[in-house]
């Protein structure tokens, strides 16, 4: 088997890897904004509850979460497909990290921005939406891009819950043919090929942001 054939074989798992990333992002981004903003605003019991949820997703090892959700929950009558578990767990784990980028970006804004909004008689939500978030999003971008790449790399773990992604394909090929060097360097290259465009995209977004005039 040529190196190119191995690479093609690995990319048969691309659709699964890609779908997990896309659906994972659909969990991660809304979770990050909802919980990051909630944590920024909340006090007392609500803050504790919000923080507990974030910490659960952020501080648990993804492998263990995958096993728990896929193998343990059915014992309690909750059965989810491997795809649902994979995208949910990876997405919310990433979202837990990203929520901290959201909160930190909001907290690091100059308080004068909020005060100017109050002085203009804007309601709190309007201050968040028109004044705080547009500025905070700019400083979130580098972290979000990093986490996106982390998410892509993390999908390799879904091969442990029966999904045939790129990593699972590599293992399958490895069982047919003894060529660890070719197969695993092919796998590394495969992940590099799908991660690098995200890096380029990140640079492009940051470049656009820095052109925008800021005080």
């Amino acid at each position, binding site marked *: 088997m040529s190196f190119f054939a191995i690479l093609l074989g690995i990319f048969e798992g691309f659709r699964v890897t890609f779908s997990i990333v896309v659906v994972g992002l659909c969990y991660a981004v809304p979770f990050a904004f909802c919980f990051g903003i909630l944590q920024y605003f909340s006090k007392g019991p609500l803050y504790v509850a919000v923080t507990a949820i974030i910490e659960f997703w952020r501080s648990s090892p993804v492998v263990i979460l995958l096993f728990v959700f896929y193998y343990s929950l059915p014992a309690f009558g909750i059965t989810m497909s491997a795809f649902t578990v994979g995208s949910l767990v990876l997405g919310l784990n990433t979202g837990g990290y990203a929520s901290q980028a959201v909160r930190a970006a909001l907290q690091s804004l*100059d308080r*004068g*921005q909020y*005060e*100017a909004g*109050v*002085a*203009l*008689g*804007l309601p709190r939500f*309007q201050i968040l939406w*028109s*004044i705080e978030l*547009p*500025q905070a999003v*700019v400083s979130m971008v580098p972290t979000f891009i990093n986490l996106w790449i982390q998410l892509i790399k993390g999908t390799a773990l879904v091969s442990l819950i029966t999904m045939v992604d790129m990593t699972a394909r590599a293992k399958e090929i490895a069982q047919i043919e003894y060529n660890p060097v070719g197969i695993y360097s092919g796998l590394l290259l495969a992940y590099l090929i799908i991660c690098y465009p995200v890096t380029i995209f990140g640079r492009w977004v940051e470049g656009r942001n820095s052109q*925008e*005039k*800021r*005080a």
Partner: protein
Amino acid sequence: MCSSITDKTEVQNAVTISELSKFYGEFEALKHIDLEVTQGERVVVCGPSGSGKSTLIRCINGLETFQSGGLEIFGEAAGGKRNGKTDPRHKTGMVFQNFNLFPHMTVLDNCTLSPRKHKRGTRDKLDALALEVLDKVKIKDQADKYPSQLSGGQQQRVAIARALCMEPEILLFDEPTSALDPEMINEVLDVMVQVANEGNTMICVTHEMGFARKVADRVVFMDAGEIVEIAKPEDFFSTPKTDRAAEFLSQVL
């Protein structure tokens, strides 16, 4: 008692502050403040740093809460905190020491944000109105620029325009020239004098004694959280009644 100096007793009070006290923990930042400002009056608040003058106007604007006493704006009580659309403090506009312009919006959008969100008219109408105000502060040609492309003095004039676009009944200035390079102070003061001469009610915290002499109806001198002296500017500058005011004046003049 404080308004006894003005003879416009038939004019409505814009701001009435009575027995207002504010604490930061144990520290009493404002001690039983009494102050009345009539409509159309220009009041300059001065005093050494830490005297509570900024805290006072931030209380008027609802940026600070207070623990006791009363605050009325055009006869309507304003609580310790801003509350909803009926809050009379929506009648106040504020200019900050550090401008606090929105860096992600053009000069024009900075000015129209509040009127747009309060649905004061169509975008075209509000843009036209804002351009008029920007023309007044002599910065109309910069309307499409972003704040960071402007000098400090220009930014502060935009901030004044932004406050004016709210069509406020009371304008508050919190040390508007303190963050400016010396050569830019006058362009801002000129605009403030112009705004004052249009009959707006103004409360200015400032160290610019020349401005106080030129436009203030009364000067309020504060020290250590108290109003120490209230006088007409000519009396305040020539014959301050208290030693503390005299000492302060000897340092700033």
